[in-house]
């Protein structure tokens, strides 16, 4: 994922919700949005987004609200057992 952000592990972004956050990231790192979202603008099947350690799929997906100081992690999905 860091290739998308010039190898930076942590970046800053702003937005009222996850969807807006991704649009903001797109301004700083053009091309990142189409990697994270499909044509309908929904987060891709294999992208996990956590806001303060909570999975947004347990919340409101891309409509999940974001506030200043929140820590958002974008991690590829994996599983096993």
């Amino acid at each position, binding site marked *: 994922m860091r290739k998308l952000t010039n190898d930076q592990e942590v970046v800053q972004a702003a937005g009222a919700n996850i969807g807006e956050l991704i649009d903001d990231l797109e301004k700083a790192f053009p091309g990142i949005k189409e990697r994270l979202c499909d044509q309908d603008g929904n987060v891709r099947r294999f992208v996990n987004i956590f806001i303060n350690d909570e999975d947004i799929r347990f919340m409101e997906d891309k409509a999940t609200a974001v506030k200043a100081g929140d820590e958002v992690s974008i991690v590829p999905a994996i599983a*096993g057992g």
Partner: protein
Amino acid sequence: MDKNLSPYFTHLKCRECGRKYPKEAVHVCDFDFGPLEATYDYDAVRATLTRKVIEARPESMWRYRELLPIDGEPTVGTQVGFTPLVKADRLAQRLGVRELYIKNDTVNYPTLSFKDRVVSVALSRAREMGFKVVACASTGNLANSVAANAASAGLKSYVLIPADLEQGKVLGSLVYGTNVIGIHGAYDQVNRLCSEIAGKYGWGFVNVNLRPYYAEGSKSMGFEIAEQLGWKLPCHTVVPMASGSLLTKISKSYKEFQLLGLIDANQRYAIHGAQAAGCAPISGAFKRGTDIVKPVQKPDTIAKSLAIGTPADGYYAIHAMRLTGGAAEDCTDEEIVEGIRLLAESEGIFAETAGGVTVACARKLIETGKISADESTVLCITGNGLKTQEAIIGKCGEPRLIKPSLREFEELIAREVTAEAAA
């Protein structure tokens, strides 16, 4: 061409967009983060792999080596697999079907679960790639297998598990000298942590950066079923689902054998998935008629081995079931225990909770007509009951206690004979 490279296993490929990747320790597509899957030159395999060739090889999962993703000879887990396919006439009668088999991985070598199959591939490949430390995120069986196989291969290992797993599974990792890290959280949180660790350390996480290799090992269960049935497929296969990976790989194994002409390409078959009601994200989505799997935030079931709330192969498992005309089912904790006992009492096979789930869900699939009574069925029983004893404590009766006296014994037997006659 490097003569040490397999001419059969050619590259990795994204399951979402199809982009190709080299045979390295990568597991995720750069473009859309889709999972990468091992891909083969089936024409080359077809030229080499015939029934006769397979039948002449030792009885292990590696008799199908052209279809497993390593370059050289396997160096870890060379004796894994080729577990018994048991014809289960007494269980068949109890369930009201004509022809039933148990694929019995409760006795898989060396750690008594199907995970030895995936670990054998992953660690053989890890060795080829030069990894010195291997690791995994696990609900129990995978940790046992990584710990044991790493020990036998002289590899250092770390296994990360939820801290509240069954004692048998915890001890069954510790004893091998692995580094066990118990996380205060559910499996999904362990998983997420491991994906972050794998990005930072140079470790071979079998179900993270080595996942495309690891996952292919499950195909061997399907290959064996086909071969042991006499080079044909069962009409119905019931598979327990945690991440959904095993079900998708059994589906792939059947397709590959048909593609290679090893079995009849026209034979229809259905693959059904089984989950516990307390954590049934895949079954839930299937029953709602969708392929969008809503995660289960707090899995709550005695089937801890299947307690994955966010199954990454859920989407593919749903499609495999739909495409083959199969169905998903789930069952209560009570039904799981009944399933364990039924299998043990009718066939003498003691399965862990995931096995109880499979039997209980098979019963439901039969009762609802998804499995016809006169069509052949295989139940995939994936792990040994000694590892999840907590699930059945107090549920199988107790020993009758007497003093070492012949009189007391005879009185006991006489009482039981009378009770039996009255019943």
